[in-house]
Protein backbone atom coordinates (compact mmCIF):
# COMPACT_ATOMS: atom_id res chain seq x y z
CA UNK A 1 0.00 0.00 0.00
CA UNK A 2 1.05 3.58 -0.58
CA UNK A 3 0.77 5.86 2.41
CA UNK A 4 -0.42 8.69 0.19
CA UNK A 5 -3.38 6.61 -0.99
CA UNK A 6 -4.32 5.85 2.62
CA UNK A 7 -4.11 9.54 3.47
CA UNK A 8 -6.30 10.35 0.46
CA UNK A 9 -8.92 7.93 1.77
CA UNK A 10 -8.65 9.51 5.22
CA UNK A 11 -9.01 13.05 3.81
CA UNK A 12 -12.41 12.11 2.42
CA UNK A 13 -13.58 10.90 5.84
CA UNK A 14 -11.89 13.18 8.37
CA UNK A 15 -14.62 15.81 8.80
CA UNK A 16 -13.96 18.07 11.78
CA UNK A 17 -11.70 15.56 13.57
CA UNK A 18 -8.46 17.00 14.92
CA UNK A 19 -5.32 15.44 13.48
CA UNK A 20 -1.93 15.06 15.15
CA UNK A 21 0.81 13.80 12.85
CA UNK A 22 4.24 12.47 13.60
CA UNK A 23 7.41 14.08 12.28
CA UNK A 24 8.43 13.18 8.72
CA UNK A 25 7.17 13.21 5.15
CA UNK A 26 3.77 11.84 6.17
CA UNK A 27 2.94 15.19 7.79
CA UNK A 28 3.71 17.04 4.55
CA UNK A 29 1.64 14.60 2.50
CA UNK A 30 -1.27 14.97 4.90
CA UNK A 31 -1.06 18.76 4.90
CA UNK A 32 -0.99 18.82 1.10
CA UNK A 33 -4.10 16.64 0.94
CA UNK A 34 -6.01 18.31 3.75
CA UNK A 35 -4.70 21.74 4.77
CA UNK A 36 -6.41 22.67 8.03
CA UNK A 37 -5.68 24.61 11.20
CA UNK A 38 -7.04 21.61 13.10
CA UNK A 39 -3.79 19.78 12.37
CA UNK A 40 -0.75 19.71 14.63
CA UNK A 41 2.62 18.60 13.32
CA UNK A 42 4.68 16.92 16.05
CA UNK A 43 8.44 17.48 16.14
CA UNK A 44 9.44 15.17 19.01
CA UNK A 45 9.92 11.61 17.73
CA UNK A 46 7.59 9.37 19.71
CA UNK A 47 5.34 12.02 21.17
CA UNK A 48 2.50 11.91 18.60
CA UNK A 49 0.48 9.26 20.45
CA UNK A 50 0.86 11.06 23.80
CA UNK A 51 -0.10 14.48 22.41
CA UNK A 52 -3.14 12.91 20.78
CA UNK A 53 -4.08 11.25 24.08
CA UNK A 54 -3.88 14.62 25.86
CA UNK A 55 -6.19 16.16 23.25
CA UNK A 56 -8.60 13.24 23.50
CA UNK A 57 -8.80 13.58 27.29
CA UNK A 58 -9.11 17.35 27.08
CA UNK A 59 -11.88 17.37 24.47
CA UNK A 60 -13.78 14.11 25.02
CA UNK A 61 -16.57 14.94 22.55
CA UNK A 62 -14.26 15.66 19.63
CA UNK A 63 -12.73 12.95 17.46
CA UNK A 64 -8.93 12.94 17.61
CA UNK A 65 -6.82 11.12 15.01
CA UNK A 66 -3.15 10.33 15.61
CA UNK A 67 -1.12 9.69 12.44
CA UNK A 68 1.87 7.84 13.81
CA UNK A 69 4.85 6.03 12.33
CA UNK A 70 6.55 2.79 13.31
CA UNK A 71 9.81 4.44 14.38
CA UNK A 72 7.89 6.99 16.40
CA UNK A 73 5.64 4.52 18.18
CA UNK A 74 8.55 2.18 18.88
CA UNK A 75 10.16 5.05 20.78
CA UNK A 76 7.07 5.55 22.96
CA UNK A 77 5.59 2.05 23.29
CA UNK A 78 4.56 2.80 26.85
CA UNK A 79 2.05 5.30 25.46
CA UNK A 80 0.03 2.28 24.27
CA UNK A 81 -0.35 1.13 27.87
CA UNK A 82 -1.30 4.62 29.04
CA UNK A 83 -3.83 5.01 26.21
CA UNK A 84 -5.31 1.62 27.11
CA UNK A 85 -5.45 2.58 30.77
CA UNK A 86 -7.30 5.83 30.03
CA UNK A 87 -9.54 4.29 27.30
CA UNK A 88 -10.40 7.55 25.48
CA UNK A 89 -13.35 6.57 23.29
CA UNK A 90 -12.71 9.48 20.90
CA UNK A 91 -9.16 8.50 19.90
CA UNK A 92 -8.23 6.78 16.67
CA UNK A 93 -4.57 5.82 16.53
CA UNK A 94 -3.33 5.08 13.01
CA UNK A 95 0.20 3.80 12.42
CA UNK A 96 1.77 3.80 8.98
CA UNK A 97 4.39 1.08 9.26
CA UNK A 98 7.01 1.26 6.50
CA UNK A 99 9.59 -0.63 8.57
CA UNK A 100 12.20 2.12 8.29
CA UNK A 101 13.24 5.37 9.95
CA UNK A 102 12.22 7.18 6.81
CA UNK A 103 12.98 10.72 7.95
CA UNK A 104 16.27 9.67 9.54
CA UNK A 105 18.03 8.02 6.63
CA UNK A 106 16.02 4.88 5.92
CA UNK A 107 17.54 2.43 8.40
CA UNK A 108 15.37 -0.56 9.32
CA UNK A 109 13.15 -0.35 12.42
CA UNK A 110 12.30 -3.28 14.69
CA UNK A 111 9.03 -3.85 12.81
CA UNK A 112 11.19 -4.78 9.82
CA UNK A 113 12.58 -7.56 12.00
CA UNK A 114 9.15 -8.83 13.02
CA UNK A 115 7.80 -6.64 15.82
CA UNK A 116 4.03 -6.51 15.48
CA UNK A 117 2.68 -3.12 16.53
CA UNK A 118 -0.97 -4.17 16.28
CA UNK A 119 -0.20 -7.15 18.50
CA UNK A 120 1.53 -4.82 20.97
CA UNK A 121 -1.41 -2.42 21.00
CA UNK A 122 -3.84 -5.27 21.63
CA UNK A 123 -1.64 -6.74 24.35
CA UNK A 124 -1.38 -3.29 25.96
CA UNK A 125 -5.17 -3.26 26.26
CA UNK A 126 -6.42 -1.52 23.12
CA UNK A 127 -8.89 -4.27 22.26
CA UNK A 128 -10.01 -2.82 18.95
CA UNK A 129 -6.64 -3.12 17.19
CA UNK A 130 -6.31 -4.38 13.64
CA UNK A 131 -4.21 -4.37 10.53
CA UNK A 132 -5.69 -2.84 7.40
CA UNK A 133 -4.21 -4.79 4.49
CA UNK A 134 -5.68 -2.88 1.57
CA UNK A 135 -7.02 0.58 0.83
CA UNK A 136 -10.53 -0.89 1.06
CA UNK A 137 -9.86 -2.35 4.52
CA UNK A 138 -8.20 0.89 5.61
CA UNK A 139 -11.18 2.94 4.43
CA UNK A 140 -13.65 0.68 6.24
CA UNK A 141 -11.61 0.71 9.46
CA UNK A 142 -11.14 4.50 9.47
CA UNK A 143 -14.74 5.14 8.53
CA UNK A 144 -16.09 3.03 11.39
CA UNK A 145 -13.59 4.61 13.81
CA UNK A 146 -14.63 8.14 12.82
CA UNK A 147 -18.32 7.28 13.06
CA UNK A 148 -17.86 6.56 16.73
CA UNK A 149 -16.24 3.18 17.04
CA UNK A 150 -14.57 3.96 20.38
CA UNK A 151 -10.85 3.72 21.04
CA UNK A 152 -9.16 1.98 18.15
CA UNK A 153 -5.75 1.29 16.72
CA UNK A 154 -5.25 0.74 12.99
CA UNK A 155 -1.97 -0.49 11.55
CA UNK A 156 -1.22 -0.11 7.85
CA UNK A 157 1.88 -1.61 6.24
CA UNK A 158 2.99 0.87 3.58
CA UNK A 159 5.83 1.16 1.10
CA UNK A 160 8.64 3.67 1.58
CA UNK A 161 7.46 5.56 -1.48
CA UNK A 162 7.12 9.30 -0.94
CA UNK A 163 4.88 11.67 -2.83
CA UNK A 164 6.43 14.99 -3.83
CA UNK A 165 4.54 17.74 -2.06
CA UNK A 166 5.24 21.26 -0.85
CA UNK A 167 7.15 21.87 2.39
CA UNK A 168 5.18 22.52 5.58
CA UNK A 169 4.42 26.23 5.32
CA UNK A 170 4.38 27.30 8.99
CA UNK A 171 6.67 27.00 11.99
CA UNK A 172 5.85 25.33 15.30
CA UNK A 173 4.71 28.46 17.10
CA UNK A 174 2.36 29.49 14.28
CA UNK A 175 1.09 25.91 14.14
CA UNK A 176 0.29 26.17 17.86
CA UNK A 177 -1.51 29.51 17.60
CA UNK A 178 -3.51 28.48 14.56
CA UNK A 179 -4.46 25.20 16.20
CA UNK A 180 -5.60 26.89 19.42
CA UNK A 181 -7.54 29.56 17.50
CA UNK A 182 -9.19 26.75 15.53
CA UNK A 183 -10.24 25.07 18.79
CA UNK A 184 -11.54 28.35 20.20
CA UNK A 185 -13.62 28.93 17.08
CA UNK A 186 -14.97 25.44 16.58
CA UNK A 187 -15.57 24.65 20.26
CA UNK A 188 -16.63 28.21 21.13
CA UNK A 189 -14.31 28.35 24.12
CA UNK A 190 -11.71 30.88 25.19
CA UNK A 191 -8.23 29.41 25.64
CA UNK A 192 -6.10 32.55 25.50
CA UNK A 193 -7.58 34.76 28.19
CA UNK A 194 -6.61 38.39 28.19
CA UNK A 195 -5.52 38.65 31.82
CA UNK A 196 -5.13 42.02 33.43
CA UNK A 197 -1.40 42.37 34.10
CA UNK A 198 -1.24 42.57 37.89
CA UNK A 199 1.84 44.82 37.87
CA UNK A 200 -0.14 47.60 36.21
CA UNK A 201 -3.40 47.38 38.15
Amino acid at each position, binding site marked *: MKRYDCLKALAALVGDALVVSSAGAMTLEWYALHPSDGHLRVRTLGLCSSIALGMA*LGLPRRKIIALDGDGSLLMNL*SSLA*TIARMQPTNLTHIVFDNEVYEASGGKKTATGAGTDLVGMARAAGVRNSRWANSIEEFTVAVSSAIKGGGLCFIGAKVTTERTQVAPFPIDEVENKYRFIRHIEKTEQIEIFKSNLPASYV
Partner: protein
Amino acid sequence: MDPIEAAKTIVTGLKSAGINLVATLPDINLSDLLSEVEADRELIHVPLCREEEGIGICAGAYLVGKKCAAIMQNGGFFNSNNAIVSTLLQYQIPLLLLIYYAGDIGDRTFSTTGSMTEPVLQALGIRYYIMRDPGDAVELIKRAQVSTEDAKRPVALLVTKEALGRRAAVASL
Protein backbone atom coordinates in the same frame (compact mmCIF):
# COMPACT_ATOMS: atom_id res chain seq x y z
CA MET B 1 1.79 19.26 58.50
CA ASP B 2 1.68 15.51 58.09
CA PRO B 3 2.02 13.97 54.59
CA ILE B 4 -1.73 13.75 54.01
CA GLU B 5 -2.32 17.32 55.09
CA ALA B 6 0.58 18.47 52.89
CA ALA B 7 -0.83 16.48 49.96
CA LYS B 8 -4.27 18.05 50.43
CA THR B 9 -2.69 21.52 50.55
CA ILE B 10 -0.80 20.93 47.30
CA VAL B 11 -3.99 19.71 45.60
CA THR B 12 -5.79 22.82 46.89
CA GLY B 13 -2.95 24.84 45.32
CA LEU B 14 -3.32 23.05 41.99
CA LYS B 15 -7.06 23.65 41.91
CA SER B 16 -6.80 27.27 42.95
CA ALA B 17 -4.31 27.74 40.09
CA GLY B 18 -7.01 26.42 37.73
CA ILE B 19 -5.28 23.10 37.02
CA ASN B 20 -7.67 20.44 35.77
CA LEU B 21 -5.42 17.72 34.31
CA VAL B 22 -2.52 16.14 36.19
CA ALA B 23 -0.08 13.59 34.75
CA THR B 24 1.93 11.67 37.33
CA LEU B 25 4.50 8.99 37.92
CA PRO B 26 5.09 7.72 41.47
CA ASP B 27 7.97 8.23 43.86
CA ILE B 28 7.41 6.85 47.35
CA ASN B 29 7.56 10.39 48.74
CA LEU B 30 4.80 11.45 46.31
CA SER B 31 2.46 8.60 47.33
CA ASP B 32 0.03 10.63 49.44
CA LEU B 33 -0.02 13.46 46.92
CA LEU B 34 -0.81 11.10 44.04
CA SER B 35 -3.56 9.45 46.10
CA GLU B 36 -5.14 12.88 46.67
CA VAL B 37 -4.88 13.70 42.96
CA GLU B 38 -6.47 10.36 42.08
CA ALA B 39 -9.30 10.85 44.58
CA ASP B 40 -10.19 14.35 43.39
CA ARG B 41 -13.18 14.28 41.04
CA GLU B 42 -12.41 17.70 39.55
CA LEU B 43 -8.99 16.62 38.29
CA ILE B 44 -8.36 14.38 35.31
CA HIS B 45 -5.56 12.12 36.57
CA VAL B 46 -3.32 10.47 33.99
CA PRO B 47 -0.98 7.90 35.54
CA LEU B 48 2.04 7.52 33.25
CA CYS B 49 4.41 4.67 32.42
CA ARG B 50 7.23 7.08 31.55
CA GLU B 51 7.42 10.77 32.35
CA GLU B 52 8.11 11.93 28.79
CA GLU B 53 4.63 10.75 27.82
CA GLY B 54 3.28 13.21 30.36
CA ILE B 55 4.91 16.14 28.59
CA GLY B 56 3.09 15.15 25.39
CA ILE B 57 -0.21 14.53 27.15
CA CYS B 58 -0.07 17.88 28.92
CA ALA B 59 0.93 19.67 25.71
CA GLY B 60 -1.99 18.08 23.83
CA ALA B 61 -4.45 18.92 26.59
CA TYR B 62 -3.18 22.51 26.76
CA LEU B 63 -3.76 22.94 23.02
CA VAL B 64 -7.44 22.10 23.52
CA GLY B 65 -7.91 24.33 26.55
CA LYS B 66 -6.87 22.42 29.67
CA LYS B 67 -4.54 23.66 32.40
CA CYS B 68 -2.09 20.93 33.26
CA ALA B 69 0.52 19.93 35.79
CA ALA B 70 3.03 17.08 35.66
CA ILE B 71 4.20 15.50 38.90
CA MET B 72 7.34 13.37 38.85
CA GLN B 73 10.68 12.70 40.49
CA ASN B 74 13.74 14.57 39.22
CA GLY B 75 14.93 11.37 37.49
CA GLY B 76 11.66 11.55 35.53
CA PHE B 77 12.38 15.16 34.67
CA PHE B 78 15.63 13.94 33.10
CA ASN B 79 13.62 11.31 31.20
CA SER B 80 11.43 14.09 29.82
CA ASN B 81 14.09 16.40 28.47
CA ASN B 82 13.74 15.77 24.75
CA ALA B 83 10.01 16.42 24.90
CA ILE B 84 10.51 19.49 27.08
CA VAL B 85 12.93 20.94 24.54
CA SER B 86 11.40 19.94 21.21
CA THR B 87 7.76 20.25 22.22
CA LEU B 88 7.29 22.63 25.18
CA LEU B 89 10.10 25.06 24.41
CA GLN B 90 9.90 24.74 20.62
CA TYR B 91 6.13 25.44 20.48
CA GLN B 92 6.13 27.82 23.48
CA ILE B 93 3.75 25.73 25.55
CA PRO B 94 3.37 26.38 29.29
CA LEU B 95 3.48 23.58 31.86
CA LEU B 96 3.64 23.49 35.63
CA LEU B 97 6.21 20.88 36.68
CA LEU B 98 6.11 19.63 40.26
CA ILE B 99 9.39 17.78 40.64
CA TYR B 100 10.17 15.77 43.75
CA TYR B 101 13.71 16.75 44.71
CA ALA B 102 15.37 13.37 45.32
CA GLY B 103 18.98 13.81 46.42
CA ASP B 104 18.25 17.22 47.89
CA ILE B 105 21.12 18.50 50.01
CA GLY B 106 21.52 16.15 52.97
CA ASP B 107 19.52 13.32 51.35
CA ARG B 108 21.42 10.03 51.36
CA THR B 109 19.80 8.61 48.23
CA PHE B 110 20.05 9.85 44.65
CA SER B 111 22.70 12.44 45.43
CA THR B 112 24.00 12.35 41.84
CA THR B 113 20.49 12.94 40.51
CA GLY B 114 20.04 15.68 43.09
CA SER B 115 23.29 17.39 42.17
CA MET B 116 22.36 17.54 38.45
CA THR B 117 18.78 18.74 38.87
CA GLU B 118 19.24 22.48 39.20
CA PRO B 119 22.05 22.67 36.60
CA VAL B 120 19.82 20.94 34.02
CA LEU B 121 16.88 23.24 34.80
CA GLN B 122 19.23 26.20 34.43
CA ALA B 123 20.66 24.88 31.16
CA LEU B 124 17.15 24.62 29.73
CA GLY B 125 16.29 28.11 30.92
CA ILE B 126 13.43 26.78 33.04
CA ARG B 127 12.57 29.01 36.01
CA TYR B 128 12.29 27.07 39.23
CA TYR B 129 11.68 27.56 42.92
CA ILE B 130 12.36 25.20 45.78
CA MET B 131 9.33 24.46 47.93
CA ARG B 132 10.41 23.41 51.44
CA ASP B 133 7.35 24.32 53.49
CA PRO B 134 3.91 22.90 52.63
CA GLY B 135 2.52 26.13 54.05
CA ASP B 136 3.91 27.91 50.96
CA ALA B 137 2.37 25.45 48.51
CA VAL B 138 -0.83 27.26 47.55
CA GLU B 139 0.84 30.60 46.98
CA LEU B 140 3.85 29.16 45.12
CA ILE B 141 1.73 26.97 42.84
CA LYS B 142 -0.51 29.90 41.93
CA ARG B 143 2.50 32.10 41.22
CA ALA B 144 4.21 29.40 39.16
CA GLN B 145 1.07 28.93 37.10
CA VAL B 146 0.86 32.66 36.38
CA SER B 147 4.51 32.66 35.28
CA THR B 148 4.26 29.60 33.05
CA GLU B 149 1.13 30.93 31.33
CA ASP B 150 2.59 34.39 30.93
CA ALA B 151 6.00 33.24 29.66
CA LYS B 152 4.56 30.30 27.69
CA ARG B 153 7.42 28.20 28.97
CA PRO B 154 7.47 25.46 31.61
CA VAL B 155 8.06 26.51 35.23
CA ALA B 156 9.22 24.02 37.85
CA LEU B 157 8.67 23.74 41.58
CA LEU B 158 11.25 21.50 43.24
CA VAL B 159 9.30 19.86 46.01
CA THR B 160 11.42 18.63 48.92
CA LYS B 161 10.61 15.91 51.46
CA GLU B 162 9.67 18.52 54.08
CA ALA B 163 7.27 20.16 51.64
CA LEU B 164 5.52 16.80 51.39
CA GLY B 165 5.14 16.66 55.17
CA ARG B 166 7.83 14.03 55.51
CA ARG B 167 10.81 13.82 57.78
CA ALA B 168 13.62 16.14 56.69
CA ALA B 169 16.29 14.35 54.73
CA VAL B 170 19.08 15.15 57.23
CA ALA B 171 17.42 13.35 60.16
CA SER B 172 19.45 10.18 59.74
CA LEU B 173 23.08 11.24 60.25
